């Protein structure tokens, strides 16, 4: 890949990723489009089963071959990823794109020294000698702020704490200087104090290396202060996408609003009643034909069940949402008020909690 490429590093268009299972076709990712510029970070937020992890692996081309059906386009610096042979794809992994996984306890090989786990891709992709690669690994460990890096090179993963292991994983991912870093729930398995250290580290490295970064998480708090743009996923689809500040200040999608309201907030007094989202996400085998959030939505009307809303543009540039009765609009307000009056939505979601709360 040459640096001369103009435009976004990554362009995803109508990406679909389905899994064949005995129960039927699971539509894990369903028509997702997004693009990402160099030096920018996009946050992908969703609950488990929303398809966010499948999306990130699908972008990498890292899905198992057997039972996966993939459609749509993923272009990395103009190159269509789906057209690459496995060998070409391997040359992409490391120097072009790299990934960090959720659980640092299981994502390092337990029987291999840390040094070797870092140097193997350096030696393979960058053709460095054994001693050169060791120097590089040492520098990497220093840059991810691991104390006593020389000693660590000869240690095994079980000798490190979770936070240290995630730092090693970051060093492994950064080893060949990728332009796109995908961090798939990098801090979910970590304690809160370690989480902030790791997020700071990722942000620092992303800025210093001018990388594009995809930060996948279920926690709106994690992406709030650290991304340029956020995409909210629900049941395999992007339901809202906006620049970070716009999303929080002018959210249109009832799901985004409900998600934010269901989280206990530290500044609220104790025993504040939470606005829980009733029910649970729909089956990905036979999702509702209308809006996928409709069965749980407080704004839902008959139209929502009949017709799937497309991604619509909001007034702010770069803000898209998937809703017929968006939050903060006259239609949305009317829909909500109607449901409040009738104490329930057309499918029977109880709205009285909202009145009491």
């Amino acid at each position, binding site marked *: 890949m040459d640096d001369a490429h103009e435009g976004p590093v990554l362009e995803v268009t109508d990406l679909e990723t389905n899994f064949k299972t005995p129960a039927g076709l699971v539509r894990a990712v369903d028509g997702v489009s997004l693009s990402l510029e160099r030096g920018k970070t996009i946050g992908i937020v969703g609950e488990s089963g929303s398809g966010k992890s499948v999306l990130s692996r699908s972008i990498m081309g890292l899905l198992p071959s057997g039972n996966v059906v993939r459609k749509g386009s993923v272009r990395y610096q103009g190159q269509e990823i789906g057209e690459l042979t496995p060998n070409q794809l391997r040359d992409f992994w490391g120097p072009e794109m790299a990934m960090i996984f959720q659980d640092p306890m299981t994502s390092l090989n337990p029987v291999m020294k840390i040094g070797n786990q870092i140097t193997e891709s350096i030696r393979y992709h960058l053709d460095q000698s054994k001693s050169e690669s060791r120097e590089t690994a040492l520098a990497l460990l220093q840059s991810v702020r691991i104390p006593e890096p020389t000693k660590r090179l000869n240690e095994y993963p079980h000798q490190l704490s979770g936070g240290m292991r995630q730092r090693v994983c970051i060093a492994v991912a950064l080893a060949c200087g990728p332009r796109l870093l995908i961090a798939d729930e990098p801090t979910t398995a970590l304690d809160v104090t370690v989480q902030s*250290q790791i997020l700071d580290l990722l942000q620092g490295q992303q800025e210093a290396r001018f990388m594009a970064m995809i930060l996948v998480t279920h926690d709106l708090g994690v992406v709030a202060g650290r991304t340029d743009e956020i995409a909210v996923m629900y049941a395999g689809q992007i339901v809202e996408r906006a620049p970070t500040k716009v999303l929080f200040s002018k959210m249109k999608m009832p799901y985004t609003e409900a998600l934010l309201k269901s989280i206990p907030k530290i500044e609220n007094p104790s*025993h504040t009643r939470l606005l829980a989202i009733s029910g*649970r996400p729909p089956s990905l085998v036979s999702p509702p034909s209308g809006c996928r959030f409709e069965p749980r939505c407080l704004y839902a009307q008959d139209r929502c069940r009949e017709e799937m809303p497309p991604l619509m543009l909001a007034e702010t540039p770069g803000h898209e949402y998937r809703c017929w009765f968006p939050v903060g609009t006259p239609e949305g307000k009317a829909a909500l008020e109607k449901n409040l009056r009738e104490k329930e939505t057309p499918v029977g979601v109880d709205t009285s909690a909202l009145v009491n709360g």
Partner: protein
Amino acid sequence: MAGSGKAHLRDGSLLRVEDLVVEFPAGPGRKVHAVSGISLDVVEGETLGLVGESGCGKSTTGKAIMQMPRPTSGTVAFEGEALTSLKGEALRQTRPTMQMIFQDPISSLNPRRKVGDIIGEPLRVWGRGDADEREKKVREVLEAVGIDPDAAMPRRPHQFSGGQCQRISIARALMLDPRVIICDEPVSALDVSVQAQILNLLEDMKARYGLTLIFIAHDLAVVKNVSDRVAVMYLGKVCEVGPPDTLYEEPAHHYTAALLSAIPVPDPEAERLDAGGIGGELPSPLDPPSGCRFRTRCPEAQERCAAEEPLMREVGVNHFVACHFPRIGGTAPPDASVPVTVSQH
């Protein structure tokens, strides 16, 4: 430590834990100091939140209160009766008064039994009621936790989602009309939207059945939401106890402050208070630091912190901290009576 002391204990509490120590053998001559002399109490109808990061001993504390495993030393008293001195059948007789809910809702339910059997089991174990009365009670409690009894009773746990399994676990804990329920990370394994349902349910059940709760979790916001009193733990010790609103507003312990500043806030405009976080690694529970256990990572640590273990003292209304140099309340007075705890190793 983050320290010892019992200044924060109250009179007339329902459950009183004093100097609780739990140690596990870890090979010849070594032991894990999981819980090292903590004291806590809960008054009737209150929710005590126990918060801390992984490895701080909060779950071990919960289980030791239930005498499962039995603590190495210390006393646990329920309405003045020391559970720690009861054995065998006498201890078993106290079981119905305290129940527990666990983190992993799927592991909490026997996959080979039907939900109706699982929920009815406590009544059969204690021989309460006849078959009809038992079924009536099962139905009542299942409905209370928001599960349709007719659909649920003949099914097995794997046919339910994590959130529903957690509801079923709560129902089982309620069957014997307990006075206290210890909730050990009950929402950590659940998605955010389901988490809110379970938290609301716990509040409802507490009101409906007049429960006293001990709520153990690592998420400070969740703990604040449900608690009347919060205890922060670090490496087997309690560092700070207080009412949630004041404790979160004005943390006295440096560790609490660091924890609070590390929470990611879902608001891009929020100023990220960079309190420097806490550096360093959690010390090994095999060989904890002398004096205050937090001193190896504390930004304000001084010589005294290594030599002398801080005691609990009141720094605000009902707000207690075990720290020599807390963020509020001034330096602790010198106390020569406190023996210097030096690590044996």
